[in-house]
């Protein structure tokens, strides 16, 4: 455990001096918090939208139940942006992990690091946690800020209850970090197999694509993200993560990295 903390300490000391990483960690949460709040603000200001529900997909209207047309429309928009919120714990850690690996490569620090009595598992866990913790904390903090401001902005208790739905709490608290863990493991695995670790970042960021797919599917009304979809996503991700963590330790070959990185 002390070696894992040493790796985390080292990663944070180094990676947070990178301006792009800092930008991702600070700016993205602010943006993703502001967007749904702006939607709530607009929804609240335009009360005359009430009653016109033609732009809302029928299955979503069904989900809205007793909500007014404006409240239902606001809920739909907020739901869409809350999906983006789930990308945060993926985007931040993958950026951190990729840059930490690029750093190891460009400064050729990995060989002396691997020469210490650290196990591959300790090194990978340290690197994963160093990437995961800031992303998850930034997401949780942003969601907390969003919840507080949403509470102050939304007059309808029913709308507030639906915005701060347990489904979204599950999504932010569990699904997001599980998605992040998958992204980090893919980053680490790919980086041990390619000569340019930036490829790893690009490949890992492709994990955002299914999430974007869900985002657009919901906008056009093809898919409705509800508690069942979120629970299913959590179960699938848990299984994927278990497989990726185990595969990651096996695939992260010291020899391949030392002899193939040029």
């Amino acid at each position, binding site marked *: 455990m*002390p*070696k894992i903390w*040493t790796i985390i*300490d*080292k990663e944070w*000391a*180094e990676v947070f*001096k*990178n301006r792009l990483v800092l930008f991702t960690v600070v700016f993205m949460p602010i943006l993703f918090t502001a967007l749904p709040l702006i939607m709530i603000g607009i929804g609240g200001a335009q009360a005359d939208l009430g009653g016109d529900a033609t732009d809302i997909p029928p299955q979503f209207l069904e989900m809205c139940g007793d909500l007014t047309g404006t409240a239902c429309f606001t809920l739909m928009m907020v739901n869409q942006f809350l999906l983006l919120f789930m990308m945060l714990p993926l985007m931040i850690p993958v950026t951190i992990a990729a840059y930490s690996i690029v*750093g190891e490569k460009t*400064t*050729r*620090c*990995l*060989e*002396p*690091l*691997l*020469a*210490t*009595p*650290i*196990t591959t598992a300790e090194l990978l866990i340290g690197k994963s946690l160093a990437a995961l913790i800031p992303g998850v904390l930034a997401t949780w903090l942003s969601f907390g800020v969003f919840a507080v401001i949403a509470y102050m902005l939304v007059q309808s208790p029913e709308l507030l209850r639906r915005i701060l739905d347990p489904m979204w709490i599950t999504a932010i608290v569990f699904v997001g970090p599980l998605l992040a863990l998958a992204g980090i493991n893919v980053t680490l695995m790919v980086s041990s197999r390619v000569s340019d670790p930036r490829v790893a970042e690009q490949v890992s960021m492709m994990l955002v694509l299914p999430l974007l797919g869900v985002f657009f599917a919901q906008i056009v009304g093809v898919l409705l993200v509800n508690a069942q979809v979120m629970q299913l996503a959590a179960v699938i991700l848990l299984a994927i993560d278990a497989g990726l963590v185990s595969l990651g330790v096996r695939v992260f070959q*010291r*020899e391949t990295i*030392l*002899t193939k990185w040029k």
Partner: protein
Amino acid sequence: MIHTENLTKKFGDRTAVEALTLDVREGEVFGFLGPNGAGKTTTVRMLTTLIGPTAGTATVNNYRVGRDDIAIRRCVGILTETPGMYDRLSAEKNLTIFARLYEVADVKGQVEKYLRLLGLWDRRTDLVGNFSKGMKQKLAICRALLHEPAVVFLDEPTAGLDPEAARLVRDFIEEIKAQGRTIFLCTHNLDEADRLCDRIGVMKQRLITVDTPTNLRQRLYGRKVVFHLRVADDALLTRVRALPFIKDAQRVDNKLVVGLDDPETHNPILVRLLVEAGADIQFVGELRHSLEDVYLSLIGTGVSTD
């Protein structure tokens, strides 16, 4: 301290190290010489458990490579080809991280000790990215020694350093040798190897030979003594050649270059003969072939002198 038996490493079809059998004694500085691509770094990587051998066995400090890897890493220090320091961290932070990973008990104390020893204490809070190449190399040496390893692997420790920094590093190697540590030194600097190493192994995929620098010279070129005379002529040369213990003798201007097996015994006889023959001897000295001559000869032929 280090023992290998038919240690072999292949990368696909390419053999990097072939059947290396080697013994490095405790407390010696062992020079490992060879051209680029000879397998020196691969050997160091196998002995420090960074990569696994394809065949053969190796032990370091009585721990077996492949079985006791973590124990080996605890008792060896390594200076890699490139310093590999974290440029965005300070010198002190860099060493602190490695001291913790090496499970050093007194992290602060050891970091301070080595920063002071290599003259970097006043720059401890500076970012390593602002250091010169020599300073980074010194810091990397500090890192290799933080945990007081019994065996130290140094891969090109003075490569790219200015003469002053190279001298400092060499002096430091002599200091750690005096502490009784075993040093495995890979270098292209033959003068450095000659000065620092107790024994030398010459490698080109396989081990060509191992011996002390003096013995290597003797085995390849024999021992030669140069007599500087006021005037040398062929008559003197003929008288010298007539002696039974002379292996070969040549005249170069006013110098006689004489090959001998045992100069300590035969020099006085030769001096007496030359004086009796009327020669004025100005100087007598041993002709030393450079280690470079020895190395190039060994690498050129690739044939063991054993």
